[in-house]
């Protein structure tokens, strides 16, 4: 298996270089883009396995880049953010980021987050699922609704599969963070909220009144027993 290629989009050359050193030491192959304006171009040329994206960039805002990448690819995106204010984090997640990590972080944290996303990309169980109007080819990583293919990011796909494997079972946000995001410690449950909402807009007929992924008030989410 070749090394996982990580595109680091960060204008701070020192941090980018240091990230490169850490990533290489951990067996990743880092690629660099120092300018937000060139990020999407760099993404298209390199076709990385993962994107590490700083929120504040010259040229173009990280949230905007995130939205652009998401519009053409499901490649996992991890945002590097210096702000853990609710508004900024939620904005990034809504733009399509799979996960975020707050500066300053320890190398171990970063590597753990990257590994979690990369492993998801690599290992996937073989089976096919059928659920109401949805038919899911887990190996082929495709979802069809009434015969039409729906574009899901790997994260959204994992989230959907996780919920649909056990219809009717309630998953708490904490359990989903463990199962889908690979978090070993308590983390930000807003990750789950935002991604469930994104997933609903893609698979539900009416995202405001979901019939597939239901909210269990005060507990978490479950797939309806259809």
């Amino acid at each position: 298996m070749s090394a996982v290629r990580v595109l680091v989009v960060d204008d701070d050359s020192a941090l980018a270089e240091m990230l490169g050193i850490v990533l290489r030491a951990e067996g990743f192959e880092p690629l660099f883009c120092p300018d937000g304006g060139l990020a999407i171009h760099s993404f298209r040329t390199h076709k990385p396995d993962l994107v590490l994206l700083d929120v504040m960039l010259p040229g173009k805002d990280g949230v905007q880049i995130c939205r652009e990448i998401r519009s053409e690819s499901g490649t996992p995106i991890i945002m590097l953010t210096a702000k853990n204010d609710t508004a900024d984090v939620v904005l990034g997640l809504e733009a399509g980021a799979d996960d975020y990590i707050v500066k300053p972080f320890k190398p171990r944290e970063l590597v753990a987050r990257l590994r979690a996303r990369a492993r998801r990309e690599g290992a996937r169980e073989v089976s096919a699922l059928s659920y109401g109007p949805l038919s899911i080819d887990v190996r082929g990583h495709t979802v069809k609704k009434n015969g039409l293919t729906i574009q899901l990011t790997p994260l959204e796909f994992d989230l959907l599969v996780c919920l649909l494997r056990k219809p009717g079972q309630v998953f708490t946000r904490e359990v989903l963070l463990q199962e889908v995001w690979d978090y070993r410690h308590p983390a930000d449950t807003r990750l789950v909220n935002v991604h469930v909402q994104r997933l609903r807009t893609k698979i539900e007929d009416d995202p405001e009144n979901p019939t597939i992924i239901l909210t269990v008030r005060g507990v978490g989410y479950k797939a309806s027993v259809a």
Partner: protein
Amino acid sequence: MKLLARWRRSLSLRVIAGSSLLILVIVIASSTLLINQVRTGVIESKVSDSLVDAVVGLDLAIDVVESFGPDVGSTPTVVDAVVATLARRSGEPAAYEVLMLSNGGDPERSSNLVLPSSVPADLIFRVFAENTQHWTYTEIDYLDGSSVPAIAVGAPMSIAEQQQYGLFLLYPTAQQQQVVNVVQSALWLISVLLAASLIVVVVILTRRITDPIRTAADTAQKIAAGLLDERLTVSGEDEVARWAESFNLMTESLEKQIKRLEDLSIVQQRFVSDVSHELRTPVTTVRLAADLLHSKRNEFPPEISRAAELLQGELDRFEMMLADLLEISRIDAGASLLQISETSVFDLVHRVIDSILPVANAAGIKIEFVEEASNLVISVDSRRIERAIRNLITNAIKHSGTDRIRIEVESELDVCIISVIDYGVGLSSEHKSQVFQRFWRADPSRSRDFGGTGLGLSIALEDIKQHSGEINVKDNDDKPGTQFVITVPVSQKAVLR
């Protein structure tokens, strides 16, 4: 009670009531005066006419008496003659009624069945006592029970110098009374119309003045509630319009000031946010580098290996300080909002103790938890309350020199009281007042070794204050040591903002 309150609160009500009262008094007084004048004028002329006529009548009566000569014979015959003559003179309908009364007790004579009660006893008395002509107002009582207002003129008369009689002529004033009545009712009608229209004018005028005031009061309340773009409508160029204009001007300048302060606050928040980003990026780089060096420290010579350890340790402290500093600036900028949820105090304190246990164990300090309000549920930002308690415990571990820490939870009415008690060296009263100051240390020469940012207690205080609570510091009652007592409302809804 309600009416009284309305009276006190409504200027227009008081003005309208006051001026209405004044208008009514003036109108009633002037109409009464006018009616009295009319009555006096009309009746008085009748009186003087009657008196003149009475003198003529009296002369006629004397003539009749004298026509009988000195030898009168039967006095009743004379009386009858007098009454008949005078009654004849009165004409039809009678211009007056005639009544003759004797001073002795002889039967009275009268025209047209007039009762003797028509003449007031007072008048009879005066006529006989003073032996001169007198008059008064009265009512003529007829035998059939009817009566009419009249003027009674009486004069003494002697017949044959033997017997005293009183001749009374009763002039009806019904006609004059009718005139007065017509004038009176017309006057009352005018008065009512006048008073009503004056009151209407007063009401309208008062409204013209108080309505804008009331609107302005409502608008001012809205502005106070935060609707800064509320304005009064200006119409015309009078005093009210000018006043509304200056009111708007004032509001405008207020709005500008508030906007300016808001902008300033936004700028400051953005500054804090930018600083956070700008500082955190280099710190991240340093952190990554230090971590790399630290993980490879076994490959370095001893001095450099130690340097890598120190670098790592101090970087932890620097990060902590940076985080605390940013938190303080966020609180100062008002950018730190509470995220309220219901939580059990028991669970909350246990979470804190669990998180701090490794540090306490390392320092050889026992933590006791005594909870009297065992299942108290409070509505707070649990992250912030946990942080406050944690900072108090950390402070006790690091600075008090105690061997155990006791945490007590009580509830009292609608507040929750959490005490963190140590049995260490205690604080002097001077130090108690300084302990929450930023970067303050009780003993600068030694405490720095214990690490910490010097901001822990300040942040704890801000956390509690934002919950409308307080932290008090006091000595233990019997043993040495210090208590930090947190008091927070059980529910943030009950707190008035």
